[in-house]
């Protein structure tokens, strides 16, 4: 459910109070940034998308009906914009081989342990990226955001049973991917 003061902030914003919108941004900027960053590992790109999420919220708040909580609503925007960006990147990557080269170049001067961890992180990101959209969303919200299933169900508008199955398959796929990449 919505926090009462959030509904008030939204109403104030819709009545022309820009400070109310600023309050919402201050409250959720970090959460939204991190949910985006889990999906888009590059900080600059994640920053762009996070800003876009709040701009989209700014433009659409008048249509927010309060059926779900504000953060459920804005999480959904964040996830959708991030997935759109991933899809765009996949298309771009099809036409470019430069990206991978730059990634390896940036690792040159790192200590071995950190290098291994970075390599592991990269594998995890690849494993997550390979997940079907639904499983990806569920995994990110459950594992990184540690949201309860019933909250994820509200965000993704689906059943708890289905979410549990999606989470299980997502974790299993990541495990299988890491096993093969070792």
């Amino acid at each position, binding site marked *: 459910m919505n926090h009462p003061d959030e509904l008030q902030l939204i109403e104030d914003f819709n009545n022309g109070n820009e400070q109310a919108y600023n309050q919402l941004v201050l409250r959720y900027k*970090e959460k939204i940034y991190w949910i985006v960053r889990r999906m888009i590992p590059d*900080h600059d790109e994640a*920053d762009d998308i996070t*800003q876009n999420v709040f701009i989209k919220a700014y433009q659409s708040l008048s249509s927010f009906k309060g059926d779900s909580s504000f953060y459920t609503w804005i999480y959904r925007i964040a996830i959708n914009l991030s997935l759109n960006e991933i899809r765009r990147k996949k298309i771009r990557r099809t036409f470019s081989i430069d990206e991978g080269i730059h990634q390896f170049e940036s690792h040159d001067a790192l200590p071995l342990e950190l290098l291994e961890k970075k390599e*592991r992180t990269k594998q*995890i990101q690849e494993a997550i990226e390979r997940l079907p959209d639904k499983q990806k969303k569920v995994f990110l919200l459950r594992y990184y955001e540690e949201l309860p299933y019933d909250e994820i169900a509200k965000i993704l508008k689906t059943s708890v049973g289905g979410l549990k199955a999606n989470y299980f398959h997502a974790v299993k796929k990541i*495990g299988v991917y890491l096993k093969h990449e070792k």
Partner: protein
Amino acid sequence: MLIDYAEGMLTSEQREEADRLLALSPELREELEIIRSAFSGLQETVQDTVPEFYFSTFLPRLRQQIDSGKEFSGWSIPYFVESVFRPVVALSIVFVMFTAYQAFHPETLQSPVYALINDCAQEEISDVVNGVVAFPTVESENLFETTLDLESFGIDLFQTQSESELTALLGEQGLEQVMQNLENSSID
């Protein structure tokens, strides 16, 4: 359940039951191993960092974008527009195709009079209607009769053909003749 088991979320009773099932099934044990390796790998990852002052400068940068009224890329379409955009485009495409089809196959959607007109040259029709010459084909004569027999067939000629269109096609005299025939409900 395996996930909850790996995350230590089960009650002691549930855990005992899971242990029993795991002891019986090598497949379950293998799945559990995969899940544990996934969680282990996830915990080994490097913590992402953000530049210093990133969050403290976020709002001013955002406000700058909003206040400058920057032109945002395609996603800036409001929600309600987005939700109707695709159906509207789809309907527009269907409409264009329908119109194009109609333009090339008008007889399928027009009244039988129009079909008759298509069978004959305009002048010939006027002559036919005025009784100067006979119908060019039996089929066209049947069509014409069908068209005029309104009560039997429930055809409303003026739903599909305006008076001006008919005048253009049949000529004023021809149309008058048609109207007269309509009133008599018979071609004879």
